[in-house]
Each structure stands twice: as structure tokens, then as C-alpha cells.
């Protein structure tokens, strides 16, 4: 069950148009297991090549516009779940990435005008799902996020789309 309030420290990767090939490169596509995907996350993103080896457990990843554009690559979602990332906050997401994340139970939060919202690395963030608000406790500032549609919450709360397969 998704908590109504999600808390975590910020991990910043505030770059626009990050392609799934920068998250999990196509030369690795015979890798299927979450723990084996994990060390390769952002392996092809300049400046973040070490992300895969860092401990970012329970953090909230903060990204830019069009995050996850590009290929239909489930591993680019699975890897963040393996890292125990609590949610990804971005200005917008590639449409296929958004769907892949929901289906596997990774929460994505869309925030229009996120680029103007001050967040530093390791700031304490709180996401209020019900109120659609993100609170940066360290800085004492708030910003509205898009409301998460109920069907999306239902899929995430069910533990992912595959759990609903018996219902149809």
C-alpha cells in the first residue's frame, strides 16, 4: 500500500531528456535480474556513472523534463526499484516510461515548473499524495504536483499490474 506521505532525502539528477539508453544501456539487454541490473543504472549518463554502486536506498530521485524518453526498457524501471528509490519526481516523463513504472509499482510524481523549485542534494522531502504537494522540509518551501490518477494508485497499491491479471 502506498503511504499517503512519502518521505526521503533528495538525490538529484536534474538533467532534461534523459533517454533510457542513458539509464540502462542497450548492450546489457540480456540482463534480466533486478540485482544484476542495479549496478548499471545511469552507467551511460555522464557525471552519474557511479550511481549504480552508490547507496541511494529510501531516497527520492529528482529529475528534469522528459525523463525516461526513448526505448521501452523495463530494466530502466526495475533498476530503481532494486536501488529502493521511493519515488521519482520530475517535470515530465516519457509516456512509455510512465506506464512501465506504474505497472511495476514505481511511483512517479509529475511537477510542472519543477525546474524553479529549490532542492539541494539530501534535502528532506515529503510528498503528500492526497494533497498533491511536495514539501522541502530543509528549505521550508512547497510546490504543487499533478494529482496521481486513482487507477494508477490502484495498480501501484495492488503491487503492480501483473497482480490484476487474474481479475480479467
Amino acid at each position, binding site marked *: 500500500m502506498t503511504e499517503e506521505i512519502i518521505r526521503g532525502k533528495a538525490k538529484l539528477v536534474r538533467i532534461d531528456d534523459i*533517454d533510457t*539508453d542513458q539509464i540502462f544501456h542497450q*548492450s546489457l*539487454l*540480456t540482463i534480466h535480474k533486478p540485482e544484476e541490473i542495479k549496478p548499471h543504472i545511469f552507467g551511460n549518463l555522464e557525471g552519474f556513472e557511479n550511481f549504480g554502486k552508490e547507496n541511494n536506498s529510501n531516497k527520492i530521485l529528482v529529475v528534469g523534463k522528459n525523463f525516461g524518453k*526513448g526505448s521501452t526498457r523495463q530494466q530502466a524501471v526495475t533498476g530503481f526499484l532494486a536501488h529502493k528509490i521511493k519515488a521519482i519526481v520530475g517535470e515530465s516523463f516519457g509516456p512509455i516510461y510512465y506506464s512501465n513504472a506504474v*505497472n511495476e509499482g514505481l511511483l512517479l510524481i509529475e511537477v510542472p515548473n519543477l525546474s524553479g523549485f529549490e532542492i539541494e542534494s539530501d534535502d528532506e522531502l515529503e510528498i503528500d499524495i492526497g494533497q498533491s504537494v511536495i514539501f522541502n522540509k530543509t528549505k521550508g518551501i512547497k510546490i504543487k504536483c499533478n494529482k496521481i*490518477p486513482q487507477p494508477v494508485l490502484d495498480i501501484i497499491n495492488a503491487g503492480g499490474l501483473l497482480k490484476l*491479471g487474474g481479475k*480479467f
Partner: protein
Amino acid sequence: MNGFTFIEKIIKSHSDASVEEIYPGNIVWINLDLVTARDYAGPQVVDLFQNNYPGSKVFDNQKIIFTPDCYPYGNDPKHAIDQEKIRFFAKEHNIKVTDLGSGIGSHLIFRRGFAKPGDIAFGADSHYNILGALGILGQGAGDVMLAFSMKTGKSWIKIPETIKVNLKGKYVWPTSSKDLALYVLKKLHEFGITGKAIEFYGEIISELSIEERVTLCSLITEASGMIGFVLPDKITKEYYERLGIEIEIFSADKNANYSEEITIDIDNLGLYIACPPHPHNVKPIEEVLGTPISSIVVGSCTNGSASDIHEVAKVLEGKKINTEVRFGIVPATREDFIDINANRDMTIILEAGGNFFGAGCSTCAKGQYGLTGGETAVTLTTGNRNTQGKIGPADVYLASPAVAAATAIEGKIARPRVGEE
């Protein structure tokens, strides 16, 4: 009452949702006409299906196809084992496989008539939305969605806003639909179309072949859009008639709600190239003329059709490819191979020093990595993605088949010319 856009009409006809529930932003369940997977993602889809639904049948084995096209020859043990997994599963469930050398799944869907205008097709390919060129709602989907869809025949979809894009004016050779697609990508990326659907209009549309429309629609993904549609018309109808399939022509409602309407002036459009490090970094060719190129690949779902290869032959006829350049052609499908063999294009290109490789996705999915690769090979492809590091460590440019051929002769980015100088 408001009418519906093209995508809203397709979604409505595939959903149990009421008329009131069909509006942008709402999420509805839809019934799929076709679910496919390929050699990347396909093996995980099989694993997820078997682990989550042990002993289950698929929802309808006539509505599922496996299309190995990324790494079609499975020429290393890991890929070979992954492909074998697909074949075993397909055999067990009596599912069609378009195997070795058949070509790119998204192209086979229209070349072999596996889906028709108004249908919804999901596959493990972010360029499945090229099917919008035929009025098919094609969508890329990840492993989880596809495993679920193979079990249930269903998917959820967030109804997108639709933008009406009017293309104003016409262009002449050597400008092609690739230059159009690149220019439109540049404009739409600047405009911002994340997650949105596009309907293309303009007098140019009725002059574009199905293959040219596919090229145009193939770069919507690179602007983070959901899909671009060319509404079915006489050209679409004739295309399907040749396959022996009758289709119904339908369009958006006259009183449909568009979130935006924009006009892009394409009159006398020049030549365009996507420069590193992003597909949307599109520049007029003048800014990069003379850039040395050592590896050229003609192929992909964007520009791997027989008509694209014909453009190459037209420019290469009677000329020689520069000895500093490796020039590879990967036809999109076996049907394209047959076409270029029938009309001498293949011979012309071979005589000029070009190389042909088996039909498939070319370098886009790494299956034919050696065509680019190395540490320093600066590549120019007719594909759709030049994200830094994707198909090789060095820079990658995206251009039309005619520009690719001209560049092959010069060994540097060049304008296409035909015949004697």
C-alpha cells in the same frame, strides 16, 4: 456535445468506458487487437507470464506475434538462449513467430497486414507508434504490460491530449520526408508534446507514400510524444487493397477538441541533420557540411524501406563509395530485400562498394553494433536515435538516405547530387 479526435475514437471503440469517460487525462481499460514482443523484452515477457500465471493460456494466440528483430541472428550464446526461450513459448501456445531475416516487427505489421487502420497494437518497441502513419494506434510497452496483455488481452491507457499540426507548403528533392520529420521533431520538441498525440494535416500529406508517412511519424517518440497520426485516406486504402484487405476510412470528428493547433511552414524546406548528442538537436545541413564520417548505416524503422534504399541507389549510381567509409545497408524487411533486388538498386549499391546485412533493426538495438562501434568511428545513420553512447562511443548524426549516400561518396557530410557533375 463535443466530438472526438482520432485517437479518442479508436480508444472509445476498444473500451467499455462510457462516452463521458473519454476525455484527455482520463485512464481507461482497452481491448487490444494485437500484442507482440521481440528478442529484447520478449524473454522477460515470457518469464513474467510463466511466473505470474503458471499453467495459463494466453488470451488469444491469433492476436499475439513474436518478432525477433533486434538481434536477429542471435550470434552470441546469451542472445541465442533468449531467442530459444521465445520459440519454445510460441510453440507451446501456438503463437506465430516472424523469425530470422523477416525484419522489423513494426514494419511487418503493415507490410503483411497484421493490423489495419483503427486497430490497437502493442509491442516492445518505442517506435510502434510509426503505425500511426496508417491510422493504427501502435504503442510501445514494457515487459510487465506485455505479459499482462498476453494474459488478458487488455491494457490501460491514459487518453492523451491531441494537437493538430498543419504542414504548410511543399518541398522538392533532395529534401525528403526524413528532412521533414527532423524539422518537425525540432519544432515539436521546442513546443513540448510530452505524452501527447498529433494529427498531421496539410496538402503535402496526400502526396506522401506510406513509407514516407512512416518516416514522418517515427520521430514523434524523440520529442517524447505519444503518437503521430496520418489519417487513413485513398493512399492507405490502396495500400491495404494490394494486401487483399478492405479497410474503412474514418477521421476525427469535425467538432473534436484539440488542445492546440499549430502550423509548421515547410515550404522549400532544406536538408536537416540531427547532431550529437540528441535526436532533437536538429540543424540545417549547412552547419555541418564537411564533417568527416567513417561509418554510415542505412536502415531502421525510420528509413530502412525499399524506397529509402532506392534513394541511396539513385545517388550512388555510377559512383564509388569513399575508401575511408564503411557503408552498411540493413533493409527493414525481407519484402524490402525482394524489392531492391528486383529493380537493380541492390546491384548499383554493391557496385559502388556498399554492403548488405540481414533484415532487422540495424544498429538501433545494438544487434549490428560492429557497423558503428570502435572508439572513434563517427557515424551517420538514417535511423532515429543518436543519444550519446547508444550505438557507439563517438558522435552519431542522423540524416536522410540521400544525404547518407552523398556523404558516403565524399567521406564527409555532403549534399546529394545525381548523375554527372
